């Protein structure tokens, strides 16, 4: 019984996030999109290990595609770039947030509403596949 509880503890990080090996994913959420063509998702990946890991891809069973976009504001302009396989350095983190790097889910098979959750799987080169649930919030300020 104690061993089972310990195992369960290992999978649930203190902050309500998800732990996988040296990684912890927390602060995940998605905004309820106005249409099913795109939705934005956000999360933070903390690497507590001594080796870097790489986020190879993101998938969701309810979206035809998913990609990460970096975003910079420069001289009043917002410009976006594709972010391919971002590295999460050792003892560092990868932060997705509104106005910054974000996950774009494309062509959703339903319209997520506030209170729903959107399932995604983050696949890392070392930590492997990490399932993460994104609670859906109304569009607005970051929590």
């Amino acid at each position, binding site marked *: 019984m104690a061993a089972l509880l310990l195992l369960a503890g290992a999978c649930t990080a203190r902050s309500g996030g998800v732990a996988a090996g040296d990684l912890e994913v927390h602060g995940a959420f998605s*905004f309820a*999109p*106005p*249409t099913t*063509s*795109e*939705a*934005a998702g956000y999360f933070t990946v903390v690497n507590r290990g001594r080796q870097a890991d790489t986020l190879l891809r993101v998938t969701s069973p309810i979206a035809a*595609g998913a*990609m990460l*976009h970096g*975003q910079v*504001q420069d*001289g*009043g*302009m*917002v*410009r*976006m*770039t*594709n972010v391919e396989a971002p590295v999460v350095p050792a003892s560092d983190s990868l932060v997705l947030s*509104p*106005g910054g790097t*974000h996950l*774009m889910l*494309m062509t959703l098979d339903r319209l997520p509403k506030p209170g729903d959750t959107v399932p995604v799987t983050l696949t890392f080169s070392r930590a492997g596949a990490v399932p993460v649930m994104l609670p859906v919030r*109304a*569009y*607005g*300020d970051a929590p």
Partner: protein
Amino acid sequence: MDTSSQVLGLALSPPQEKPAFTLTDTQGRPFDFRKETSGYVTLLFFGYTHCPDVCPVHMSNIAQTLKNMPAPEASRIKVVFVTNDPERDTAPRLRAWLDAFDPTFIGLTGSNAEIVAAEAAAHLPPSEKDTTAGAGAGSYLVGHAAYVYACTPDNICRFLYPFGFRQVNWAHDLPLLVAWPNSPS
């Protein structure tokens, strides 16, 4: 001096006369921006509906603030969203996207040249289509001005609202813009 009543938006220096341009609304009718918004607080934003992050956050924060304001005050504010992606943003798509925030929001489109001219009239940098980013196969992203451009009822544009301007601050500023010029700047 009561600093709490000061507008928090970034002051345009100098303030600018309201831009003049005519684009097409989501009913297919010509929309003379300066004439149709004359006497109203006017919030102008250039963006596109396939934008998942900056554009809907701005629109939602404004929509929620308007819902929380007394109706007579909210009715003194016009929100105009100009697409800078006229190829993909058809009138029905633009309407459906704006309706998800507030059905009173005005959606405008036009030719690429007309939209760039409207951006220039508002002294905003022209949007940039970037086909190197996106999901491939005709997908692309649009670089665009991050600001909401705000004009007071005297038809002078005085403030810019950058991304990250929070809903609580919109709730602070919009009544001051409606009351202009009786609100200290």
